[in-house]
């Protein structure tokens, strides 16, 4: 039973990281205003939201299963206040910080029609910090962090995010693709 919980905890954590990698890349893609082939513009936003909310769900399972893990000895407070856990406080604390940020980002995202674009966008910038924090947490506290496949998977996530953020920072990103791909009206 404990083994199962532990495996569930690790697995959901890792898949959540993959989901947030996808969410980040798609968030950047949708912000660019360019359609993706087969998805269009709204399809990117839909997938972005689905990937993010799936990640949120996985994180919830991740927390619940590890709360009952007798080895890590976590208390509920460790899920809210970072850096006080007795077990690997720094690496776990980063996870807690990521959870806190994720909670705020998620609530603000879901209420964005009411809160308006200013608040939404400002808070949503935190996702650029959220991702590396979650990554460090995974590398620091993950039992599997030393294995080949874990390194391979996290390396793939890093490559995807670096590429997406790099593109976000290039001047052509802001051009929306209109100049190069003018659309016919009507």
């Amino acid at each position: 039973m404990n083994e199962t919980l532990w495996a569930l905890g690790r697995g959901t954590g890792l898949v959540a990281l993959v989901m947030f990698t996808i969410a980040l890349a798609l968030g950047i893609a949708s912000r660019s205003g360019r359609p993706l082939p087969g998805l269009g513009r709204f399809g990117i936003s839909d997938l972005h939201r689905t990937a993010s909310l799936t990640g949120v769900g996985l994180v919830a399972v991740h927390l619940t299963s590890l709360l009952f893990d007798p080895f890590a000895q976590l208390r509920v407070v460790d899920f809210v206040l970072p850096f006080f856990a007795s077990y690997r406080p720094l690496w776990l604390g980063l996870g807690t910080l990521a959870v806190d940020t994720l909670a705020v980002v998620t609530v603000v995202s879901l209420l964005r029609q009411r809160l308006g674009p200013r608040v939404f966008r400002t808070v949503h910038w935190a996702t650029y910090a959220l991702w590396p924090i979650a990554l460090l947490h995974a590398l620091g506290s993950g039992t599997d962090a030393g294995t080949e496949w874990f390194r391979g998977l996290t390396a793939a996530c890093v490559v995807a995010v670096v590429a997406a953020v790099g593109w976000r920072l290039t001047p052509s990103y802001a051009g929306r693709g209109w100049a190069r791909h003018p659309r016919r009206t009507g």
Partner: protein
Amino acid sequence: MPLGAAEGGVVTTRLHIDWTRCDGHGSCAELLPELLGLDDFGFPVVRFAERDPAIPRRDEEAARHAVRSCPVMALRLYEPG
């Protein structure tokens, strides 16, 4: 006959575009092609002479989808009255 303009008498949902927010992202026109076109800069153009176009029943789902997908929250549905 433009779509949506013909529903005399029935209270229909209308789509409001907040032009101070819209920044020509264009996903609304993809979802509501019969109601909205795009100008050369990617800003939506209502296809018939209505400020806030009435949404035909069969487009209501698509319209809600468009509201959700607008990245800058520039779209709103309302029922006049």
